[in-house]
Protein backbone atom coordinates (compact mmCIF):
# COMPACT_ATOMS: atom_id res chain seq x y z
CA UNK A 1 0.00 0.00 0.00
CA UNK A 2 2.53 2.52 1.18
CA UNK A 3 5.13 1.04 -1.09
CA UNK A 4 2.81 1.49 -4.04
CA UNK A 5 2.19 5.10 -3.09
CA UNK A 6 5.89 5.78 -2.95
CA UNK A 7 6.46 3.96 -6.25
CA UNK A 8 3.78 5.98 -7.98
CA UNK A 9 5.00 9.23 -6.52
CA UNK A 10 8.52 8.45 -7.64
CA UNK A 11 7.26 7.68 -11.13
CA UNK A 12 5.45 10.99 -11.30
CA UNK A 13 8.52 12.90 -10.19
CA UNK A 14 10.77 10.99 -12.57
CA UNK A 15 8.52 11.70 -15.53
CA UNK A 16 8.58 15.40 -14.77
CA UNK A 17 12.34 15.51 -14.34
CA UNK A 18 12.93 13.62 -17.58
CA UNK A 19 10.52 15.87 -19.43
CA UNK A 20 12.37 18.92 -18.13
CA UNK A 21 15.72 17.47 -19.12
CA UNK A 22 14.43 16.66 -22.59
CA UNK A 23 13.01 20.15 -22.99
CA UNK A 24 16.54 21.46 -22.49
CA UNK A 25 18.30 18.84 -24.59
CA UNK A 26 15.99 19.18 -27.56
CA UNK A 27 16.36 22.94 -27.54
CA UNK A 28 12.75 23.55 -26.60
CA UNK A 29 14.05 25.88 -23.94
CA UNK A 30 17.30 27.77 -24.30
CA UNK A 31 19.97 26.29 -22.06
CA UNK A 32 21.82 29.60 -21.97
CA UNK A 33 18.82 30.96 -20.08
CA UNK A 34 17.68 27.90 -18.16
CA UNK A 35 20.24 25.29 -17.19
CA UNK A 36 19.53 21.64 -17.88
CA UNK A 37 17.60 19.75 -15.22
CA UNK A 38 20.59 17.47 -14.71
CA UNK A 39 22.77 20.50 -14.04
CA UNK A 40 20.30 21.83 -11.50
CA UNK A 41 20.12 18.44 -9.80
CA UNK A 42 23.90 18.24 -9.68
CA UNK A 43 24.09 21.73 -8.11
CA UNK A 44 21.34 20.76 -5.67
CA UNK A 45 23.33 17.70 -4.65
CA UNK A 46 26.49 19.78 -4.17
CA UNK A 47 24.61 22.23 -1.99
CA UNK A 48 23.98 19.54 0.60
CA UNK A 49 27.70 19.54 1.31
CA UNK A 50 27.90 23.33 1.46
CA UNK A 51 27.85 24.45 5.11
CA UNK A 52 26.91 27.99 4.11
CA UNK A 53 23.82 26.71 2.32
CA UNK A 54 22.91 24.47 5.22
CA UNK A 55 23.09 27.47 7.51
CA UNK A 56 20.77 29.25 5.08
CA UNK A 57 18.32 26.35 5.16
CA UNK A 58 18.45 26.31 8.93
CA UNK A 59 17.73 30.03 9.07
CA UNK A 60 14.69 29.59 6.87
CA UNK A 61 13.48 26.59 8.84
CA UNK A 62 13.55 28.52 12.10
CA UNK A 63 11.62 31.45 10.68
CA UNK A 64 9.14 29.14 9.00
CA UNK A 65 8.48 26.84 11.94
CA UNK A 66 8.27 29.57 14.54
CA UNK A 67 6.06 31.71 12.33
CA UNK A 68 3.78 28.79 11.64
CA UNK A 69 3.51 27.89 15.29
CA UNK A 70 2.61 31.43 16.24
CA UNK A 71 0.08 31.57 13.41
CA UNK A 72 -1.58 28.37 14.63
CA UNK A 73 -1.64 29.60 18.19
CA UNK A 74 -3.28 32.84 17.11
CA UNK A 75 -5.48 31.89 14.18
CA UNK A 76 -7.04 28.61 15.29
CA UNK A 77 -8.47 29.99 18.56
CA UNK A 78 -9.52 33.13 16.73
CA UNK A 79 -11.17 31.08 13.99
CA UNK A 80 -12.87 29.01 16.65
CA UNK A 81 -14.14 32.13 18.32
CA UNK A 82 -15.39 33.71 15.13
CA UNK A 83 -16.78 30.39 13.89
CA UNK A 84 -18.85 29.92 17.01
CA UNK A 85 -19.88 33.52 17.61
CA UNK A 86 -21.69 34.65 14.47
CA UNK A 87 -22.06 38.20 15.78
CA UNK A 88 -18.37 38.61 16.32
CA UNK A 89 -17.81 37.17 12.89
CA UNK A 90 -20.08 39.66 11.14
CA UNK A 91 -18.55 42.55 13.04
CA UNK A 92 -14.95 41.66 12.26
CA UNK A 93 -15.53 40.42 8.72
CA UNK A 94 -14.88 43.77 7.00
CA UNK A 95 -11.67 44.13 8.95
CA UNK A 96 -10.53 40.62 8.17
CA UNK A 97 -11.42 40.91 4.51
CA UNK A 98 -9.68 44.26 4.33
CA UNK A 99 -6.45 42.91 5.75
CA UNK A 100 -6.43 39.58 3.96
CA UNK A 101 -5.65 40.75 0.43
CA UNK A 102 -2.80 43.01 1.48
CA UNK A 103 0.37 41.23 0.43
CA UNK A 104 2.70 40.60 3.31
CA UNK A 105 5.40 41.53 0.83
CA UNK A 106 3.94 45.03 0.57
CA UNK A 107 3.82 45.25 4.33
CA UNK A 108 7.40 44.15 4.69
CA UNK A 109 8.93 47.63 4.51
CA UNK A 110 6.47 48.79 7.15
CA UNK A 111 7.13 45.83 9.41
CA UNK A 112 10.82 46.53 8.94
CA UNK A 113 10.32 50.07 10.16
CA UNK A 114 8.86 48.81 13.41
CA UNK A 115 10.90 45.72 14.18
CA UNK A 116 14.68 45.87 14.20
CA UNK A 117 15.31 42.15 14.40
CA UNK A 118 15.85 40.42 11.12
CA UNK A 119 14.21 37.07 11.79
CA UNK A 120 11.41 38.65 13.79
CA UNK A 121 10.53 40.66 10.69
CA UNK A 122 10.30 37.56 8.57
CA UNK A 123 8.41 35.68 11.24
CA UNK A 124 5.88 38.47 11.41
CA UNK A 125 5.38 38.25 7.67
CA UNK A 126 4.97 34.47 7.91
CA UNK A 127 2.45 34.79 10.71
CA UNK A 128 0.51 37.42 8.79
CA UNK A 129 0.23 35.31 5.67
CA UNK A 130 -0.21 31.88 7.25
CA UNK A 131 -2.92 33.02 9.64
CA UNK A 132 -5.54 33.54 6.94
CA UNK A 133 -5.91 30.00 5.61
CA UNK A 134 -5.97 28.77 9.20
CA UNK A 135 -8.62 31.28 10.16
CA UNK A 136 -10.84 30.65 7.16
CA UNK A 137 -10.59 26.88 7.31
CA UNK A 138 -11.27 26.80 11.04
CA UNK A 139 -14.32 28.96 10.56
CA UNK A 140 -15.66 26.87 7.70
CA UNK A 141 -14.93 23.66 9.56
CA UNK A 142 -16.86 24.80 12.61
CA UNK A 143 -19.77 25.77 10.49
CA UNK A 144 -19.87 22.30 8.96
CA UNK A 145 -20.55 20.41 12.20
CA UNK A 146 -23.58 18.14 12.16
CA UNK A 147 -26.25 19.94 14.21
CA UNK A 148 -27.57 16.66 15.60
CA UNK A 149 -24.18 15.92 17.09
CA UNK A 150 -24.17 19.33 18.76
CA UNK A 151 -27.71 18.94 20.00
CA UNK A 152 -26.81 15.62 21.53
CA UNK A 153 -24.21 17.32 23.67
CA UNK A 154 -26.47 20.18 24.54
CA UNK A 155 -29.26 17.82 25.56
CA UNK A 156 -26.96 16.24 28.11
CA UNK A 157 -26.65 19.66 29.62
CA UNK A 158 -23.14 20.41 28.46
CA UNK A 159 -22.38 24.09 28.11
CA UNK A 160 -21.16 25.90 25.03
CA UNK A 161 -17.54 25.30 25.87
CA UNK A 162 -17.98 21.57 26.29
CA UNK A 163 -19.89 21.35 23.02
CA UNK A 164 -17.08 23.26 21.39
CA UNK A 165 -14.33 21.14 22.88
CA UNK A 166 -15.94 17.74 22.49
CA UNK A 167 -17.95 18.03 19.30
CA UNK A 168 -17.28 21.10 17.22
CA UNK A 169 -13.51 21.00 17.41
CA UNK A 170 -13.04 17.25 16.86
CA UNK A 171 -15.50 17.36 14.01
CA UNK A 172 -13.78 20.36 12.45
CA UNK A 173 -10.29 19.07 13.18
CA UNK A 174 -9.67 17.39 9.81
CA UNK A 175 -10.57 20.60 8.05
CA UNK A 176 -8.42 22.66 10.38
CA UNK A 177 -5.55 20.34 9.58
CA UNK A 178 -6.13 20.98 5.90
CA UNK A 179 -5.79 24.63 6.85
CA UNK A 180 -2.52 23.84 8.58
CA UNK A 181 -1.29 22.16 5.43
CA UNK A 182 -2.21 25.19 3.37
CA UNK A 183 -0.59 27.48 5.91
CA UNK A 184 2.57 25.41 5.97
CA UNK A 185 3.13 25.96 2.30
CA UNK A 186 2.17 29.61 2.51
CA UNK A 187 4.54 30.05 5.44
CA UNK A 188 7.46 28.61 3.53
CA UNK A 189 6.64 30.74 0.53
CA UNK A 190 6.51 33.89 2.57
CA UNK A 191 9.63 33.04 4.56
CA UNK A 192 11.63 32.63 1.37
CA UNK A 193 9.99 35.60 -0.33
CA UNK A 194 10.71 37.82 2.63
CA UNK A 195 14.34 36.75 2.53
CA UNK A 196 14.37 37.45 -1.18
CA UNK A 197 13.32 41.00 -0.44
CA UNK A 198 14.99 41.96 2.80
CA UNK A 199 17.93 39.58 2.58
CA UNK A 200 19.47 38.83 5.94
CA UNK A 201 22.42 36.94 7.30
CA UNK A 202 21.06 33.46 6.57
CA UNK A 203 18.17 32.08 4.59
CA UNK A 204 17.38 30.26 1.39
CA UNK A 205 16.06 33.52 -0.03
CA UNK A 206 19.29 35.32 0.91
CA UNK A 207 21.16 32.54 -0.84
CA UNK A 208 19.04 33.15 -3.91
CA UNK A 209 19.95 36.84 -3.84
CA UNK A 210 23.63 35.99 -3.74
CA UNK A 211 23.21 33.44 -6.51
CA UNK A 212 21.10 35.79 -8.60
CA UNK A 213 23.56 38.65 -8.25
CA UNK A 214 26.28 36.28 -9.37
CA UNK A 215 24.20 35.42 -12.44
CA UNK A 216 23.97 31.80 -11.33
CA UNK A 217 20.51 30.72 -12.42
CA UNK A 218 21.54 27.11 -11.85
CA UNK A 219 22.09 27.80 -8.15
CA UNK A 220 18.88 29.80 -7.85
CA UNK A 221 16.93 26.88 -9.27
CA UNK A 222 18.79 24.36 -7.13
CA UNK A 223 17.83 26.33 -4.03
CA UNK A 224 14.26 26.53 -5.30
CA UNK A 225 14.31 22.78 -5.63
CA UNK A 226 15.31 22.43 -2.00
CA UNK A 227 12.58 24.81 -0.93
CA UNK A 228 10.10 22.55 -2.70
CA UNK A 229 11.56 19.49 -1.01
CA UNK A 230 11.17 21.14 2.39
CA UNK A 231 7.51 21.76 1.66
CA UNK A 232 7.08 18.22 0.41
CA UNK A 233 8.52 16.73 3.57
CA UNK A 234 6.48 18.96 5.85
CA UNK A 235 3.33 18.04 4.02
CA UNK A 236 4.09 14.33 4.12
CA UNK A 237 4.47 14.55 7.89
CA UNK A 238 1.17 16.38 8.24
CA UNK A 239 -0.59 13.90 5.97
CA UNK A 240 0.68 11.03 8.06
CA UNK A 241 -0.62 12.80 11.15
CA UNK A 242 -3.96 13.24 9.45
CA UNK A 243 -4.12 9.58 8.49
CA UNK A 244 -3.40 8.48 12.03
CA UNK A 245 -5.46 10.97 13.96
CA UNK A 246 -8.52 11.01 11.75
CA UNK A 247 -9.23 7.42 10.90
CA UNK A 248 -12.85 8.04 11.75
CA UNK A 249 -12.99 10.75 9.14
CA UNK A 250 -11.79 8.48 6.37
CA UNK A 251 -14.16 5.73 7.53
CA UNK A 252 -17.34 7.75 7.68
CA UNK A 253 -16.76 9.95 4.72
CA UNK A 254 -15.63 7.11 2.55
CA UNK A 255 -12.16 7.96 1.50
CA UNK A 256 -11.48 5.73 -1.46
CA UNK A 257 -10.46 2.35 -0.24
Amino acid at each position, binding site marked *: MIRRRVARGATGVAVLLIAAELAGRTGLVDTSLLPLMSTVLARAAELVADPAFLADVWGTLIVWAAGLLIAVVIAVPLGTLLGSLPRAETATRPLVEFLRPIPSVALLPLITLLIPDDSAIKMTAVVYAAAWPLLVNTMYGLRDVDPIAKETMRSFGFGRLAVLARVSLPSAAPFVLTGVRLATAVGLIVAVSAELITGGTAGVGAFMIRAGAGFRTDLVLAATLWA*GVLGLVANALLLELQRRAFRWHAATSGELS
Partner: protein
Amino acid sequence: MSAATTLPPAEVTKRRARGGRLSALVTRVWLIPVVVAAWEIGTRQAASAYFPPPSQIVARAYELWFSGPAAHLFLTDDALGDFLPSLARLFGGWAVACVLGIGLGVALGRSRALAGYIDPLVEFGRAIPPPALVPLFIVIFKLGTEMQVATIVYGVIWPILINSIDGARYVDRLHMDTAEVFGMGRAQRLFRIILPAAGPKIFAGLRLSVALAVILMVLSELVGSTDGIGYQLSYTQMNFDLAGMWSVIVLLGVLGLVLNASFLAVERRVLSWHRRARQTT
Protein backbone atom coordinates in the same frame (compact mmCIF):
# COMPACT_ATOMS: atom_id res chain seq x y z
CA MET B 1 -43.71 45.88 21.88
CA SER B 2 -46.61 47.95 23.19
CA ALA B 3 -46.53 50.14 20.14
CA ALA B 4 -46.50 47.11 17.94
CA THR B 5 -49.73 45.76 19.39
CA THR B 6 -51.68 48.73 18.10
CA LEU B 7 -50.47 48.21 14.55
CA PRO B 8 -52.00 45.80 12.07
CA PRO B 9 -49.87 42.62 11.88
CA ALA B 10 -48.62 43.25 8.36
CA GLU B 11 -47.37 46.63 9.41
CA VAL B 12 -45.62 45.12 12.39
CA THR B 13 -43.70 42.60 10.34
CA LYS B 14 -42.76 45.27 7.83
CA ARG B 15 -41.43 47.49 10.57
CA ARG B 16 -39.58 44.64 12.12
CA ALA B 17 -38.06 43.82 8.76
CA ARG B 18 -36.96 47.38 8.25
CA GLY B 19 -35.64 47.70 11.78
CA GLY B 20 -34.04 44.31 11.33
CA ARG B 21 -32.28 45.33 8.15
CA LEU B 22 -30.98 48.49 9.75
CA SER B 23 -29.73 46.75 12.85
CA ALA B 24 -28.26 43.99 10.69
CA LEU B 25 -26.32 46.67 8.83
CA VAL B 26 -25.19 48.19 12.09
CA THR B 27 -23.99 44.90 13.50
CA ARG B 28 -22.09 44.34 10.29
CA VAL B 29 -20.26 47.64 10.00
CA TRP B 30 -19.98 49.20 13.43
CA LEU B 31 -16.39 48.10 13.83
CA ILE B 32 -15.18 49.97 10.75
CA PRO B 33 -15.60 53.54 12.05
CA VAL B 34 -14.15 52.47 15.38
CA VAL B 35 -11.03 51.06 13.78
CA VAL B 36 -10.60 53.98 11.40
CA ALA B 37 -10.93 56.44 14.26
CA ALA B 38 -8.40 54.54 16.34
CA TRP B 39 -6.06 54.46 13.38
CA GLU B 40 -6.43 58.21 12.79
CA ILE B 41 -5.79 59.04 16.43
CA GLY B 42 -2.92 56.57 16.76
CA THR B 43 -1.08 57.80 13.70
CA ARG B 44 -1.60 61.45 14.58
CA GLN B 45 -0.17 60.79 17.98
CA ALA B 46 2.81 58.90 16.59
CA ALA B 47 3.35 61.57 13.92
CA SER B 48 5.65 59.39 11.87
CA ALA B 49 6.03 60.22 8.20
CA TYR B 50 6.01 56.51 7.46
CA PHE B 51 2.60 56.08 9.05
CA PRO B 52 0.37 58.85 7.75
CA PRO B 53 -3.14 59.16 9.21
CA PRO B 54 -5.98 57.74 7.10
CA SER B 55 -7.30 61.19 6.28
CA GLN B 56 -4.02 62.01 4.59
CA ILE B 57 -4.05 58.68 2.76
CA VAL B 58 -7.53 59.27 1.45
CA ALA B 59 -6.57 62.78 0.29
CA ARG B 60 -3.61 61.36 -1.58
CA ALA B 61 -5.73 58.57 -3.08
CA TYR B 62 -8.24 61.16 -4.25
CA GLU B 63 -5.50 63.20 -5.84
CA LEU B 64 -3.96 60.15 -7.50
CA TRP B 65 -7.03 58.41 -8.81
CA PHE B 66 -10.38 60.03 -8.19
CA SER B 67 -9.96 63.61 -9.30
CA GLY B 68 -10.64 62.83 -12.95
CA PRO B 69 -13.35 64.14 -15.27
CA ALA B 70 -16.97 63.16 -14.72
CA ALA B 71 -17.01 61.46 -18.09
CA HIS B 72 -14.53 58.93 -16.74
CA LEU B 73 -16.51 58.40 -13.55
CA PHE B 74 -14.07 60.82 -11.92
CA LEU B 75 -11.23 58.41 -12.44
CA THR B 76 -7.93 59.88 -13.50
CA ASP B 77 -5.96 58.58 -16.45
CA ASP B 78 -3.55 57.03 -13.99
CA ALA B 79 -6.37 55.15 -12.33
CA LEU B 80 -7.77 53.89 -15.61
CA GLY B 81 -4.34 52.95 -16.85
CA ASP B 82 -3.52 51.00 -13.70
CA PHE B 83 -6.83 49.61 -12.48
CA LEU B 84 -8.16 48.14 -15.69
CA PRO B 85 -5.14 46.04 -16.68
CA SER B 86 -4.71 44.91 -13.08
CA LEU B 87 -8.31 43.82 -12.76
CA ALA B 88 -8.15 42.05 -16.10
CA ARG B 89 -5.11 40.06 -14.96
CA LEU B 90 -6.69 39.40 -11.60
CA PHE B 91 -9.90 37.98 -12.98
CA GLY B 92 -8.22 36.20 -15.86
CA GLY B 93 -5.73 34.49 -13.59
CA TRP B 94 -8.30 33.67 -10.96
CA ALA B 95 -10.70 32.20 -13.49
CA VAL B 96 -8.01 30.00 -15.01
CA ALA B 97 -6.93 28.88 -11.54
CA CYS B 98 -10.52 28.03 -10.59
CA VAL B 99 -11.10 25.89 -13.64
CA LEU B 100 -7.75 24.14 -13.39
CA GLY B 101 -7.85 23.81 -9.61
CA ILE B 102 -11.34 22.41 -9.32
CA GLY B 103 -10.94 20.15 -12.34
CA LEU B 104 -7.62 18.74 -11.32
CA GLY B 105 -8.59 18.66 -7.65
CA VAL B 106 -11.70 16.58 -8.23
CA ALA B 107 -9.80 14.23 -10.51
CA LEU B 108 -7.08 13.77 -7.91
CA GLY B 109 -9.62 13.45 -5.13
CA ARG B 110 -11.51 10.69 -6.85
CA SER B 111 -8.68 8.72 -8.40
CA ARG B 112 -6.25 7.11 -6.04
CA ALA B 113 -3.93 6.10 -8.86
CA LEU B 114 -3.74 9.56 -10.38
CA ALA B 115 -3.28 11.06 -6.95
CA GLY B 116 -0.42 8.64 -6.35
CA TYR B 117 1.44 9.88 -9.39
CA ILE B 118 0.78 13.56 -9.02
CA ASP B 119 0.50 14.23 -5.28
CA PRO B 120 4.24 14.68 -4.69
CA LEU B 121 4.44 17.11 -7.58
CA VAL B 122 1.54 19.08 -6.17
CA GLU B 123 3.08 19.19 -2.72
CA PHE B 124 6.42 20.12 -4.20
CA GLY B 125 4.94 22.75 -6.44
CA ARG B 126 2.94 24.54 -3.82
CA ALA B 127 5.93 24.94 -1.51
CA ILE B 128 7.80 26.93 -4.12
CA PRO B 129 7.52 30.69 -3.75
CA PRO B 130 6.17 32.28 -6.92
CA PRO B 131 8.93 34.95 -6.86
CA ALA B 132 11.52 32.18 -7.03
CA LEU B 133 9.88 30.88 -10.16
CA VAL B 134 10.08 34.16 -12.01
CA PRO B 135 13.40 33.14 -13.63
CA LEU B 136 11.61 30.11 -15.00
CA PHE B 137 8.46 31.93 -16.07
CA ILE B 138 10.44 34.66 -17.78
CA VAL B 139 11.95 32.03 -20.04
CA ILE B 140 8.72 30.16 -20.73
CA PHE B 141 6.22 33.00 -20.99
CA LYS B 142 6.26 36.39 -22.63
CA LEU B 143 7.00 39.21 -20.24
CA GLY B 144 3.88 41.18 -19.48
CA THR B 145 0.36 39.89 -19.31
CA GLU B 146 1.22 36.31 -20.18
CA MET B 147 3.76 35.98 -17.43
CA GLN B 148 1.64 37.88 -14.95
CA VAL B 149 -1.35 35.65 -15.48
CA ALA B 150 0.89 32.61 -15.16
CA THR B 151 2.22 33.93 -11.85
CA ILE B 152 -1.29 34.60 -10.56
CA VAL B 153 -2.51 31.16 -11.60
CA TYR B 154 0.50 29.52 -10.04
CA GLY B 155 0.11 31.31 -6.74
CA VAL B 156 -3.64 31.11 -6.44
CA ILE B 157 -4.34 27.57 -7.52
CA TRP B 158 -3.13 25.74 -4.42
CA PRO B 159 -5.87 26.39 -1.89
CA ILE B 160 -8.46 25.66 -4.56
CA LEU B 161 -6.67 22.48 -5.54
CA ILE B 162 -6.05 21.23 -2.02
CA ASN B 163 -9.56 21.93 -0.81
CA SER B 164 -11.07 20.42 -3.96
CA ILE B 165 -9.00 17.27 -3.48
CA ASP B 166 -10.10 17.09 0.13
CA GLY B 167 -13.73 17.78 -0.64
CA ALA B 168 -13.91 15.28 -3.46
CA ARG B 169 -12.02 12.62 -1.55
CA TYR B 170 -14.22 12.78 1.52
CA VAL B 171 -17.78 12.59 0.25
CA ASP B 172 -20.15 10.84 2.63
CA ARG B 173 -19.81 7.16 1.87
CA LEU B 174 -23.55 6.63 1.78
CA HIS B 175 -23.94 9.37 -0.80
CA MET B 176 -21.51 7.62 -3.11
CA ASP B 177 -23.13 4.27 -2.42
CA THR B 178 -26.51 5.67 -3.31
CA ALA B 179 -25.17 7.04 -6.57
CA GLU B 180 -23.51 3.74 -7.32
CA VAL B 181 -26.64 1.77 -6.64
CA PHE B 182 -28.81 3.88 -8.87
CA GLY B 183 -26.27 3.41 -11.60
CA MET B 184 -25.47 7.05 -12.02
CA GLY B 185 -23.00 7.73 -14.79
CA ARG B 186 -19.69 9.47 -14.30
CA ALA B 187 -20.93 12.86 -15.36
CA GLN B 188 -23.96 12.66 -13.14
CA ARG B 189 -21.96 11.53 -10.18
CA LEU B 190 -19.55 14.37 -10.75
CA PHE B 191 -22.06 17.16 -11.21
CA ARG B 192 -24.85 15.94 -8.99
CA ILE B 193 -23.03 14.33 -6.09
CA ILE B 194 -19.33 15.02 -5.85
CA LEU B 195 -19.30 18.71 -6.73
CA PRO B 196 -22.23 19.67 -4.50
CA ALA B 197 -20.94 17.55 -1.63
CA ALA B 198 -17.47 19.02 -1.99
CA GLY B 199 -19.02 22.44 -2.50
CA PRO B 200 -18.53 23.80 1.02
CA LYS B 201 -14.86 22.91 1.01
CA ILE B 202 -14.27 24.10 -2.53
CA PHE B 203 -15.83 27.39 -1.59
CA ALA B 204 -13.60 27.71 1.44
CA GLY B 205 -10.67 27.27 -0.95
CA LEU B 206 -12.09 29.76 -3.42
CA ARG B 207 -12.57 32.30 -0.68
CA LEU B 208 -8.95 31.98 0.32
CA SER B 209 -7.93 32.29 -3.27
CA VAL B 210 -9.79 35.52 -3.94
CA ALA B 211 -7.62 37.45 -1.51
CA LEU B 212 -4.59 35.56 -2.70
CA ALA B 213 -5.33 36.61 -6.26
CA VAL B 214 -5.07 40.24 -5.23
CA ILE B 215 -1.76 39.52 -3.56
CA LEU B 216 -0.39 37.74 -6.60
CA MET B 217 -1.62 40.42 -8.92
CA VAL B 218 0.62 42.78 -6.98
CA LEU B 219 3.56 40.39 -6.96
CA SER B 220 3.22 39.70 -10.66
CA GLU B 221 3.36 43.39 -11.42
CA LEU B 222 6.57 43.92 -9.53
CA VAL B 223 8.66 42.38 -12.33
CA GLY B 224 8.86 43.84 -15.77
CA SER B 225 5.52 45.57 -15.60
CA THR B 226 4.85 49.06 -16.89
CA ASP B 227 1.35 49.46 -15.51
CA GLY B 228 -0.98 48.10 -12.86
CA ILE B 229 -1.61 48.51 -9.17
CA GLY B 230 1.47 46.52 -8.21
CA TYR B 231 3.57 48.71 -10.45
CA GLN B 232 2.06 51.71 -8.72
CA LEU B 233 3.07 50.24 -5.40
CA SER B 234 6.69 49.79 -6.35
CA TYR B 235 6.76 53.14 -8.13
CA THR B 236 5.48 54.99 -5.08
CA GLN B 237 7.99 53.10 -2.96
CA MET B 238 10.86 54.00 -5.25
CA ASN B 239 9.72 57.61 -5.23
CA PHE B 240 9.40 57.70 -1.44
CA ASP B 241 5.79 58.74 -1.90
CA LEU B 242 4.67 57.38 1.46
CA ALA B 243 1.06 58.56 1.37
CA GLY B 244 0.87 57.20 -2.16
CA MET B 245 2.18 53.84 -1.05
CA TRP B 246 -0.37 53.71 1.76
CA SER B 247 -3.06 54.63 -0.74
CA VAL B 248 -2.16 51.59 -2.78
CA ILE B 249 -2.26 49.39 0.31
CA VAL B 250 -5.64 50.73 1.31
CA LEU B 251 -6.83 50.32 -2.26
CA LEU B 252 -5.81 46.68 -2.15
CA GLY B 253 -7.72 46.17 1.07
CA VAL B 254 -10.81 47.81 -0.35
CA LEU B 255 -10.50 45.77 -3.52
CA GLY B 256 -10.30 42.61 -1.44
CA LEU B 257 -13.28 43.71 0.61
CA VAL B 258 -15.40 44.26 -2.48
CA LEU B 259 -14.31 41.02 -4.13
CA ASN B 260 -14.96 39.08 -0.96
CA ALA B 261 -18.41 40.60 -0.49
CA SER B 262 -19.38 39.68 -4.05
CA PHE B 263 -17.93 36.25 -3.53
CA LEU B 264 -19.91 35.71 -0.36
CA ALA B 265 -23.07 36.78 -2.15
CA VAL B 266 -22.49 34.07 -4.73
CA GLU B 267 -21.58 31.56 -2.07
CA ARG B 268 -24.70 32.31 -0.10
CA ARG B 269 -26.76 31.41 -3.14
CA VAL B 270 -24.90 28.32 -4.19
CA LEU B 271 -24.52 26.93 -0.70
CA SER B 272 -27.85 28.00 0.73
CA TRP B 273 -28.76 24.35 1.28
CA HIS B 274 -25.68 23.89 3.34
CA ARG B 275 -26.19 26.90 5.51
CA ARG B 276 -29.80 26.03 6.20
CA ALA B 277 -29.18 22.33 6.75
CA ARG B 278 -26.38 23.08 9.16
CA GLN B 279 -28.29 25.66 11.14
CA THR B 280 -28.74 24.71 14.72
CA THR B 281 -32.29 25.57 15.44
